[in-house]
């Protein structure tokens, strides 16, 4: 940013600076989001239809990413899988972060026994290994999409709670919190108006990171056969289905893995390169 280029001028107008890596990462995420939204309209073949006589077929003009272990079109299956991977993860991360952050801020502001009780309870939840917890829940209630979302959000709430509480405790000691308290403000105003705006940046970064964890855990559960059940398949399930193609170097196992990698890496890169507000705007 030494010479004012045209992108520099655009940045100035928006009041934010956004670098190239961040823009490309955001592009990939938006691409996958678009795919998830419009998958039924754009898939070239039906997901369940066997289109190739051969199994683990190579890439061709008709079947872009080859065929899977039953001879189905892997390209269409990945596009449809994006719905499950993105949708379930997004729902779970929203629930986990919302409840975790709300509870964390409440604990920090209220303090005392409320803080101790919440912290110990969520620490106890946190101490259960996440995959094992998933296994137990699926064994007990069976695998369905609502159950998956609920399980994933319960697993990731304690982490979000700890993170938000640690941030909120720091903000809570500032003088403006004392001023607000002595003005006579109540808890909802304190957490929503005084604390939240100050921790929003890190909380959003944490949300992105937790999204990645959930995508990976969901893929892991699906790989073990506990996640999304056939005939539907998310990306993790696609890898598991086609794991037999690994000795043949089949594209059917490589492309779902690449899809998982591209999404998680993009989210990470976006978090590291979030647009930053330009404070010096006197050149406008």
């Amino acid at each position, binding site marked *: 940013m030494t010479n004012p280029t045209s992108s520099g001028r655009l940045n100035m107008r928006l009041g934010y600076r956004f670098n190239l890596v961040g823009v490309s990462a955001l592009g990939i995420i938006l691409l996958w989001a678009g795919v998830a939204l419009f998958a039924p309209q754009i898939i070239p073949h039906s997901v369940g239809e066997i289109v190739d006589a051969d199994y683990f077929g190579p890439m061709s003009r008709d079947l872009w990413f080859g065929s899977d272990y039953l001879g189905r079109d892997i390209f269409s299956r990945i596009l449809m899988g994006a719905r499950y991977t993105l949708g379930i993860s997004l729902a779970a991360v929203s629930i986990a972060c919302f409840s975790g952050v709300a509870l964390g801020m409440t604990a920090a502001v209220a303090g005392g026994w409320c803080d101790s009780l919440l912290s110990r309870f969520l620490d106890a939840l946190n101490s259960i290994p996440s995959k094992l917890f998933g296994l137990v829940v699926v064994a007990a209630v069976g695998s369905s999409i609502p159950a998956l979302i609920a399980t994933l959000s319960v697993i990731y709430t304690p982490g979000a709670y700890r993170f938000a509480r640690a941030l909120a405790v720091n903000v809570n000691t500032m003088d403006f919190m004392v001023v607000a308290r002595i003005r006579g403000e109540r808890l909802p105003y304190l957490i929503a*108006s005084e604390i939240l705006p100050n921790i929003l940046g890190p909380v959003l970064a944490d949300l992105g990171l937790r999204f990645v964890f959930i995508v990976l855990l969901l893929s892991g559960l699906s790989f073990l056969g506990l996640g999304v059940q056939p005939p539907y398949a998310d990306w993790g399930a696609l890898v598991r289905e086609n794991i037999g193609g690994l000795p043949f170097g089949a594209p059917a196992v490589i492309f779902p893995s690449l899809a998982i990698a591209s999404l998680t890496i993009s989210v990470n890169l976006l978090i590291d390169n979030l647009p930053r507000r330009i*404070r010096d*705007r006197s050149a406008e």
Partner: protein
Amino acid sequence: MTGNLVEIRNLRVEATTDAGRRVEIIKGVSLDIAEGEIVALIGESGSGKTTIAMTLMGYARQGCAITGGEVRVGGVDMVKLSEAERAGIRGTGVAYVPQSAAAAFNPALTIMDQVIEVARIHRLMSATEAQAKALLLFKALSLPHPETIGNRYPHQVSGGQLQRLAAAMALIGQPKVVIFDEPTTALDVTTQVEVLRAFKSVTAQHNIAGVYVSHDLAVVAQIADRIVVLKDGTVQEMGATNDILEGGQHPYTRELLAAFRPKAQQREPDGKSATKRPLLEVDNLTVGYGPRSRDGQPLIKAVQAVSLKLDQGRNLGIIGESGCGKSTLARAIAGILPAHAGDIVFNGRELGKAGRNRTRNELREIQIVFQHADTALNPAKSVEDILRRPLAFYHGMRGKTRDARVNDLLDLVRLPKSVRHRLPGELSGGQKQRVNFARALAAEPTLILCDEITSALDTVVAAAVVELLKELQRELGISYIFISHDLSVVEAICDEIIVMYRGQKVEQIASTRLAAPEHPYTRLLFSSVPKLDTRWLDNLERDAEQVRAYGHP
């Protein structure tokens, strides 16, 4: 080598903002320092005084770069050296004493290890030799227990001692120039005297040249041979200390001098006040921290049985050094920290000890303004949002009436309307303190507790804030309780002054009778305030017994 030890010629430093714009912060400064001479750089914050001092080590802060001119120290141009060559000179040729020694020491290492670190890094001498040398420096800086103080950890010595130890650390490499970056700003006046004396004798003894960065003209008057007045990165005026103090020509220098001599309050004592009902009466208030013992007393008592009385429209000052309990007293009155014993009667009604036991109206009538406007204003909210909240909360204002009132408040504290949409981080220190004050005014209180509100501000800005407080009092008839460690500020605004020491009120004195304090601690405190007189420190004779009883050597 000819001429002066330090020669700065046409120095330019540029900073790059986050929008990629370049700003010149030092605009062609030239100055010389002779061997053994101490030159003071004085000016408000942002005037570039620390930046210039740092260039003596060839250093520019992150985002800044030296873009022109030369800085010759002992004939070597620091600007042209490589980073490795500069590192060789730092500590041995030029050394640095930071503003906050507490932040500069590593809490995990003993003091001795850190003091002799410079000798070890530059391989100047063996560890035993370095320790022997450190011992001599400790003695020269008149530190107590010089033989054993090196074995302690930084948190085991007082702030004034740590500041002198930081000087020892800087001096051990036998530098020719030492940079003192506001080394006494964070200290109490009683401690400051000792530290200044130590610095003065050591620099004279070793014939060390120094750059003394400060915004306090009276401190500088004691230690500097010459004064350089800076503003906006340019030299405004330069001259021998006496000439500047007595005949400063430049308007900014005059402003600085004028700010240092606040006009004593010209208020005739109000004859009717005796019959009036007092606004605030505090009776035997005890406040403390920590768990309560069996008899219901707190572990640490910060305020012990303090009583005070304040009449409507009058002002009360509370002074004392850090840790004397003056802020705790204010917090107890405001209800932030519930008192353990005693009564607070406001307008004839007894107040609940904790804020949550008071009614909204009682909370509204007493407002508190904190020292650090940076932390007292929510950095994520605009000035407008900050001021709107108390208006809606206490007065139920909405929409246009509220917006008009926000404009009125900004007018009251002399801020332009354009700051409405700014965030606190985009305002200067003085502006932030005004917003902080406007928020208290928004509640329409009858009493404002001002907790060191001018301590973080420059002399000129602080004087303007005090002026503003006086004007508001005339317009709105508010009372103030003004807490400060700076006698001159309290003197300018208060009718009565309470002196506190270790949680107890030692004396209450009318501002008209300040010249004749009775309690020995008050005498010590008042005599420690530096005066605009170059001979003040040398002539100051302190009663050794008083210093032993109340000082922190």
